[in-house]
């Protein structure tokens, strides 16, 4: 029995639960909002099993677990509930971090994605390239960086922002940096690729769009793409280094075919990619979870038992 831990208000969580149930992954849902409003928790940090009490029903939080611990505090009607939401989310994250990482899909043991520039520095030394980047609140530094090359800019944190081209007229806005820093990056001309990693399987999708940020382009064209073996292997290694089972890694591939790492998402919104791939990512997640328990319901080593199946490249370790 799997526990699905997340918010019913989160479309990705709803999609995940639905997709996994359709594929035979049995489980109970523990809703974060419900837990904040009317639940109790008892979570040891020694790797032993904790529990949640929801409306008088006790849920043992034993692996395997599927979690999406999004911040729901912004939707809380008052300050007290917002504090409780943050405390519950943080406590569950700490509990999950104490469990074996490969038995939690969606555990967050690595928050490096919060600081994109820092994560880029951690991703160096692999088969991909890193785009030249300048994160700054200094207008002079930004102006110097932008003068030397074509540049895009975006938010420094994991909060959702759109990437935009830096144009000459934006120079007049650089003094605004004093209020909040911005991440400037060399512009890579080419197409985007999102690589989803599930265990040691990778699923690539290329996105060709006219705009700088394909998420803003309704005419963007999506197509499955074969991820070069060294890149695929490094995606798996990076995901494992982040102590994740499931990740979404973003690349820009230049016109010359060079792969540039942009960021790795520890809680990817994968449903659109999954639908276009005919459910291959969900299949892999279900395989991973179903293969994680033996006939007696005991959790076994997951990563060593993920079977190969159509729809994903299996990467060598």
């Amino acid at each position, binding site marked *: 029995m799997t526990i699905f831990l997340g918010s019913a208000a989160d479309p990705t969580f709803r999609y995940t639960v639905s997709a996994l149930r359709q594929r035979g992954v049995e489980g109970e849902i523990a809703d974060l909002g419900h837990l904040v409003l009317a*639940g*109790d*928790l*008892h*979570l*040891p*940090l*020694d*790797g032993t099993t*904790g529990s949640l009490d929801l409306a008088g029903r006790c849920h043992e939080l034993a692996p395997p677990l599927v979690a999406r611990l999004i911040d729901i505090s*912004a939707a809380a009607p008052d300050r007290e509930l917002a*504090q*409780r939401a*943050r*405390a*519950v989310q*943080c*406590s569950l994250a*700490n509990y999950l*971090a*104490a469990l074996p990482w490969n038995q939690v899909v969606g555990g967050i*043991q*690595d*928050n490096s994605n*919060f*600081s*994109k*520039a*820092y*994560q*880029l*520095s*951690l*991703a*160096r*030394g692999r088969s991909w*390239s*890193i*785009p*030249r*980047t*300048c*994160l*700054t*609140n*200094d207008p002079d*530094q930004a102006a110097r*960086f932008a003068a030397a090359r074509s540049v895009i800019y975006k*938010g*420094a*944190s*994991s*909060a959702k*922002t759109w990437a935009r081209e830096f144009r000459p007229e934006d120079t007049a806005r650089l003094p605004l940096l*004093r*209020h*909040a*820093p*911005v991440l400037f990056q060399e512009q890579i001309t080419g197409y985007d690729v999102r690589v989803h990693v599930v265990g040691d399987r990778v699923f690539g999708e290329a996105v060709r769009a006219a705009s700088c940020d394909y998420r803003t382009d309704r005419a963007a064209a999506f197509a499955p793409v074969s991820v070069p073996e060294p890149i695929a292997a490094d995606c798996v290694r990076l995901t494992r280094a*982040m102590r994740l089972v499931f990740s979404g890694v973003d690349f820009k591939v230049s016109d010359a075919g060079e792969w540039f790492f942009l960021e790795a998402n520890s809680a990817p919104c994968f449903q659109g990619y999954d639908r276009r791939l005919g459910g291959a990512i969900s299949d892999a997640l279900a395989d991973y979870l179903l293969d994680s328990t033996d006939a007696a319901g005991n959790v076994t080593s997951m990563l060593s038992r993920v079977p190969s199946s159509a729809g994903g490249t299996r990467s060598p370790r």
Partner: protein
Amino acid sequence: MLALIGHDGDPVCDALLRAADRAGLRAARVRDPAAWKVTVQLDGDGRGRVDLRAPDGTPVTCAVNRSLPPQPGLGPGEYNDLLATWWAALALLPGRVVNRPSPQGFIPSPRLPGAYLTTRPRPCGTAVVANVHDAHTGRFLYRADGEHPSAQAPVLRVTPFDPGRAWRLMLAGDQAVELHTPADGLTQRDRAAGQADIRTFKAAGLGLALIVLSRAGDGVMRTVAVNPLPSLPHYQDYEERVHSALMGWLAG
């Protein structure tokens, strides 16, 4: 320059500013992080270069990170961008940093198996007490000796331990200052266990931290609590020694 990053009313930052002055180390409080110039550049192979400067242009060479002060004038998104920028800058700063950010968090938070998180704390056993912290903020709330008072935070982090068997240390740079030894003394094995844990905590980015070890039922000394944001009362009788050791390390 030493950057002392912490909330406006943080007495530890104030005391460290005085200690830096005594040690002849130029230092400044970071009360308004948006006013400091922060630049992190990554070259084509991902190598990071940090340029962190005080509002007067003085370059920062080392830092004490006791959390980024809130910025009431910024919205949540802008504050996140500021935090993400300081996170990268302090993680990649070539000089010494107390509480260097890591992939796990802006403030290092070593995992300790002895505690549990709960919304409904259970009564302590008769042999031990429990230190109770706010699970989200890490703020110390009370020490429970038997029953717990009504909840003072949404989720509590409860750490049961036997105070008579506790060994309290202050990590100050590369030194560990002993604050309290257990009533039954310390063996060589205890000290070796303590040193091993301290090495782990230093590698995790800690530089000024209260560390509490306690002999468990099996006789082995284990760390039961680490506070990366200690307050002055935690080491009031050793303040000068701790701060002097820390300044020596930061300047080194």
